[in-house]
């Protein structure tokens, strides 16, 4: 639940961006990619992160940097949530165990 | 190549119970493939069963019959060792037939 809440907050923050430039997009995309790479190292990538990254690339190709930047920020938020999940589950999984 | 038709026909002496399973996609024409293109309708239209020179069952099917279609019925008569002829034809004109022994 905590994870989902974090995503919601981050996404609503991201969609407030206005009139983004190509440079804004590139920065946002690089940050998202870096976070997703870290999630990959933790073997915990999420499908919606990949979807958002693809949507960001597509919007940028069409010259819509507002949308592209918003998508990239969403991807970064999702990737960070997946990192948070993997990190917090490192020990917490044991609580679930049937013993 | 194995037959597309699997049949189990068992005689109780009085009646013969027939179960058949046919390997066929039975594409409805309403499903899209991974690329988003409609998979054209492709389905068995008629499946017939013949025993002792007489048709004992005819199935007329539309595309709403499930993939790898199955049917079960029984007819009077039929003895162990008798032949049961089964054949189908689909909406693209493909067909297959086989002869099964009643067990």
């Amino acid at each position, binding site marked *: 639940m905590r994870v989902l809440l974090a995503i919601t907050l981050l996404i609503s923050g991201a969609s407030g961006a206005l009139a983004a430039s190509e440079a804004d997009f590139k920065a946002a995309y690089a940050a998202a990619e870096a976070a997703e790479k870290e999630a990959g190292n933790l073997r915990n990538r999420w499908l919606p992160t990949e979807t958002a990254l693809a949507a960001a690339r597509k919007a940028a190709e069409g010259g819509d940097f507002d949308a592209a930047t918003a998508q990239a920020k969403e991807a970064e938020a999702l990737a960070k949530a997946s990192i948070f999940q993997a990190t917090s589950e490192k020990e917490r999984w044991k609580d679930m165990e049937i013993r | 190549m194995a037959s597309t038709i699997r049949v189990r026909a068992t005689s109780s002496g009085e*009646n013969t119970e027939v179960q058949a399973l046919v390997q066929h996609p*039975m594409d*409805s024409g*309403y*499903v*899209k493939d991974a690329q988003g293109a409609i998979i054209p309708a492709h389905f068995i*239209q*008629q499946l*017939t069963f*013949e025993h002792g020179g*007489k*048709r*004992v*069952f*005819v*199935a*007329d*099917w*539309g*595309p*709403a*019959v*499930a*993939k790898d*279609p*199955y*049917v*079960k*019925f*029984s*007819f*009077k*008569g039929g003895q162990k060792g008798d032949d049961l*002829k089964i*054949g*189908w*034809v689909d909406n693209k*004109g493909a*067909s297959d*037939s086989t002869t099964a022994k009643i067990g």
Partner: protein
Amino acid sequence: MTLSLDRSIVTRRLILRGAAAVALIGLGDLPLPALAAANDRYPEDAFKQKSDADAIKSLYGKSAEASDKVKLDAPEIAENGAVVPIAVTTTLEGVTSISFLVSENPNALAASYVIPEGTLPSVANRLKMQKTSNVIAIVEAGGKLYSATKEVKVTVGGCGG
């Protein structure tokens, strides 16, 4: 019994000839020598109808009355709409044909079976259901149509997506 069998065949042929006049696709002779006879022409037109009522009309040229002598066996909730086991059996005499319709499918008629003399009036098959719908079993006996209807809930549709 022979009489009613003949009548049903005539009905089918007449309807098919009628359909052929407006027909879009002629099937030609089915390549099933020794198996398919002329009176078992595939009822193309009936399978094209959208509603259950139109399909029944096209197939039989008359309408059906509900009968408790038609026992329809179908699940309450289909485990998957792609494969729904449905069976019908009846105590009616002189059965010549049994059909299954799924009212909410794009084309209601799913399957129709010719029951020659000597074949028991009992059929089991597996149908696709796109969504929750009434399933109708039609039994033609003695030249009349009888039906049974049951609602089957579908939570996973059988038409993809």
